[in-house]
């Protein structure tokens, strides 16, 4: 009996289903919000329905779909590279670096540069500096090891967290509040130009990550295992860390450091669908985006007219869910 048809069926079925859920979220969630929108008014391009749908809710939903997908994909990638189901891009310092960059510009009171929000620039610069430091720190005996990346990343994470606290303490009351608000992470309406840039970067980086799916499978087992099956381990780890960091930095710049999506979604897909990265990576992207868009929608309808940040909704749903998943696991399958 061949197992090929079964594998293909599972792959096809889960991918198609994930894509359907993703597209459904893109089409339906913009219609959900504190105020109702009339389809007929939108079709006639009548204000304010047309404006609310197109300029506010649709761009916001698309941002959540792209950023959630990127965060989830980066989480899946880092968990494979570090062989740890609890590893996240937050463990590796990138998001702390991006956060520190953004927090620094908020603390300085810088708002825009050539029309670009300074928090974006700060986050990208912060992430890039951390990327260079971590790669440099993990480089030992002409090679990069996952262990080196993990240790250096954790050290940088702690240093960045300390600087964030210091900056927040000296920033004054209103700026300190802005920093705290930014650090929770939220999805806001954004321009379609920014969305197009983010979508282009995320799509191309995700495609590069996906094209190496078999190598992530091998690295998820072990470095010797991967090396003896044709992987150039050092360069693959450096490549993965850089690609994951670009995804993280791009998303965090626009949304702030939203946690949990990169932990829960890979875990969910791995336990319910497959741990094979050829299936896991695309499903994690599609379902990660859907989950963040859903949380953002819940956040804007639960206590109208006020809104809960998507990051807070995600943590409130994700935390208990993660505990429940861990309790469901058999003892031999501990994380």
């Amino acid at each position, binding site marked *: 009996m061949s197992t090929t048809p079964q594998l293909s069926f599972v792959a096809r079925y889960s991918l198609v289903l994930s894509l359907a859920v993703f597209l459904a979220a893109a089409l339906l969630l913009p219609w959900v919000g504190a105020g109702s929108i009339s389809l007929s008014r939108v079709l006639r391009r009548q204000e304010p329905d047309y404006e609310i749908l197109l300029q506010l809710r649709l761009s916001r939903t698309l941002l959540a779909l792209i950023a959630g997908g990127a965060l989830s994909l980066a989480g899946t990638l880092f968990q494979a590279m570090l*062989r740890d189901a609890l590893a996240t891009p937050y463990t590796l310092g990138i998001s702390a670096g991006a956060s520190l960059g953004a927090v620094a510009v908020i603390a300085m009171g810088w708002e825009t540069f050539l029309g670009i929000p300074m928090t974006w620039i700060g986050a990208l610069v912060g992430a890039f500096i951390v990327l260079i430091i971590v790669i440099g720190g993990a480089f030992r005996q002409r090679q990069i090891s996952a262990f080196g990346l993990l240790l250096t990343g954790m050290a940088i994470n702690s240093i960045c967290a300390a600087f964030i606290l210091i900056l927040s303490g000296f920033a004054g009351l209103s700026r300190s509040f802005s920093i705290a608000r930014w650090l929770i992470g939220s999805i806001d309406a954004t321009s379609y130009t920014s969305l197009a840039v983010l979508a282009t970067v995320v799509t191309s980086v995700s495609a590069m990550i996906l094209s190496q799916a078999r190598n992530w499978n091998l690295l998820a087992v072990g470095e010797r295992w991967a090396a003896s099956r044709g992987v150039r381990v050092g360069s693959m780890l450096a490549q993965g860390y850089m690609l994951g960091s670009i995804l993280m930095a791009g998303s965090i710049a626009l949304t702030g450091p939203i946690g949990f999506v990169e932990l829960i979604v890979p875990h969910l897909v791995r336990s319910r669908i497959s741990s094979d990265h050829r299936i896991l990576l695309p499903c994690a992207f599609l379902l990660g985006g859907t989950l963040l868009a859903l949380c953002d929608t819940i956040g804007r309808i639960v206590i109208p007219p006020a809104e809960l940040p998507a990051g807070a909704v995600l943590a409130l749903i994700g935390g208990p869910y993660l505990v429940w998943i861990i309790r469901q696991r058999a003892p031999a399958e501990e994380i």
Partner: protein
Amino acid sequence: MNCLLEVDGVSFAYGSRSVLDSVNFRAEQGEFLALIGMNGSGKSTLLDIVSGFRRPEAGSVVVSGRRQEDWKRREMAQHISHLPQSIHADLPFTAEQLVGMGRYPHTDSWFESEEDHRHIRTAMERTSSWPYRHRSFQALSGGERQRVLVAACLAQNAAVLLLDEPSTFLDIEQQLHCFSVLRDEALAGKLCIAATHDLNLALTYCTRLLVLANGVIAWDIQTVEAHDNKAWLELFSKRLQIGKTPSGTPWVWYQ
């Protein structure tokens, strides 16, 4: 017979601690070598170097007539498979997915072909791991995991098999079966090198013993001559004795 492997003057150190100091040996197609030695004698390091995972500080490794550094990584993986001493498979791959990874160096297609699946099934059947192919690797016992890992090496269908303690965690029946499978691979024209602490398995199934001590190959003897030259045994323990089984195979016991 073709010379598949030439290790010439290979040295390696972890920091200031020298592990290998000018190791030399050659191995041919059809041989099954037992790499034996005390703990920390450098067996795993030597296998790492031969597999290309570590670079030697001095010396060279020639595989099928080509220097190791002239091989591309993937090309090397089609030629040499390596079973590490331990892996940390925390992610819940199924047994079949792990064995399937042995086919990666041979194909560019997104999923395994029918031919790949034939190799996977044959390898798993040979190590008696096919019945639990759908189970998560994490949920398997130590012995079941080891059989899966050996199957992954077999599925790679390489000319040279490097196995670091392949019989670890296996019950006696499975230890015998594992070494018997490796001997069959050698008889089919491959080169198998197994690092092991089980001298009797080595004497029963292997064609040659490489004894690593003090960073060099202290003894390189044919298994059939192991009984006549007992000095190699003293490297392990003064309490060891060697005799022969009724069928004539050398056999070690301790007093």
